[in-house]
């Protein structure tokens, strides 16, 4: 577990996500945002690797965070891998393990000291549309969205407020977007700062809004 330095006045957000430059950029953007999840000021982020033994996450949850962000899968620079080149180990790691990791996080929150802890799940926006060479990643993204909806249905008011933010790999990694997308982003390529803002906005959504997906893709898909 990596605990990033934070001040005693800042609220804390726990972020569960795969190590890498994208995670680092997202953490920095979350901390740079003027308002954290409770709207009282900036936040500090405690980072946990997915799939770590439960005590690491339990310890972070015991520290009374204001919210939890779970990033599904890796958001490192785009790496197209056609189905024929995707071996079974790749498949398990990219398509299945990220969904199970989200389930583990949800279970930890449910069993933790605050079963109402607000939760934002970050998924690859490609899951909404599909993308060449991304069968595994989009499987994980849409599997994770279904998990979040199921948790919202099962636990209702007795569970955490759950929302999703769907954003692009390019936004989190800072890499150039993959060529070939037909639709241009009508508001420009999304940035990691916009993704972070959307995460904070998702935390701030009113109670009456059920599990919903905020799409941060530069207004490319304009999904319902």
């Amino acid at each position, binding site marked *: 577990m990596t605990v990033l330095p934070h001040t005693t006045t800042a609220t804390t957000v726990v972020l569960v996500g795969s190590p890498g430059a994208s995670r680092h950029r997202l953490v920095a953007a979350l901390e740079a945002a003027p308002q954290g999840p409770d709207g009282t000021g900036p936040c500090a982020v405690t980072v946990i690797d997915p799939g770590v033994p439960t005590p690491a996450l339990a310890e972070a949850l015991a520290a009374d965070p204001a919210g939890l962000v779970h990033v599904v899968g890796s958001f490192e620079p785009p790496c197209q891998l056609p189905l024929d080149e995707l071996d079974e180990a790749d498949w398990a790691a990219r*398509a*299945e393990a990220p969904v199970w990791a989200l389930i583990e996080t949800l279970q930890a929150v449910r069993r933790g000291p605050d079963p109402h802890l607000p939760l934002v799940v970050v998924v690859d926006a490609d899951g909404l549309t*599909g993308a060449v060479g*991304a069968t595994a990643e*989009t499987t994980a993204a849409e599997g994770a969205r*279904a998990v979040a909806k199921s948790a919202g249905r099962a636990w209702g008011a007795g569970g955490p407020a759950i929302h999703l933010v769907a954003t692009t790999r390019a936004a989190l990694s800072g890499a150039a977007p993959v060529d070939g997308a037909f639709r241009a982003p009508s508001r420009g390529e999304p940035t990691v700062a916009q993704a972070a803002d959307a995460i904070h906005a998702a935390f701030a959504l009113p109670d009456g809004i059920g599990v919903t997906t905020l799409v941060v893709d530069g207004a490319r898909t304009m999904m319902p």
Partner: protein
Amino acid sequence: MMDLTDHVVIVTGAARGVGVGIAQAFSAAGARVVLAVRDTAAGDEVLAGLPAGGLTVRCDVTDRGEVEQLVAVTRERFGRLDHVVHNATSGRSSEVVDLADVDHELWQQHASVSLRALHRLAAATGPALREARGSLLVLTSPAGIEGSSTVPLYAAVKGGQRGFVRSLAQEWGPAGVRVNALAPLAVSPALRNAFVENPELEERLTRATPLRRVGDPRTDIGPAAVFLCSPAAAYVTGQTLIVSGGRFTAL
């Protein structure tokens, strides 16, 4: 446009329920159906009722060797493969669980049949489907679209399948192979058992369905599967067709 005479289709999980209805509908459209089943006796019973004939092949889709054998036997016997319908799901699909309590073993059960086997089946049949400019059809579920409080792992893998279909449709489209999903509301063996245990459930579900009945695998779901694989849907790919009597209308 729905004539599939001489086409060859593999249907996984074809020994019971929706899989049987799909096999019957493909056969009625003239296709030869390869029934990929774990219970070959049950498969042979289904095969006996198929007017266009076919083949029963023992296949546990979680076994890579058996999937490869399925494809090899199909091509050896018929010389072609035009369509694949992945309908098989875990035997524990309908088990009611709380997401808070599910363990990794149960997740593996679901993922191995609905996700890993789908990847494996697509990889193994891709060359034949490209040769035939055919289609891959995945039986998903409304649960994968809106989540489920009672079968969350089933919902997870069914949602995942939709993400898979969207990407593979884009990947295989240039080769002329179409990839779609079908989300049915139908009387499966599990649902039928649930109706027996809880007669009110059938009434409630029927009342909540605008067409006032739960879908029949052969007459309601099978034809929709045939449509998606037929020339009538030649310009349809990457889609999920919800066949639920109007029960599920939000995407």
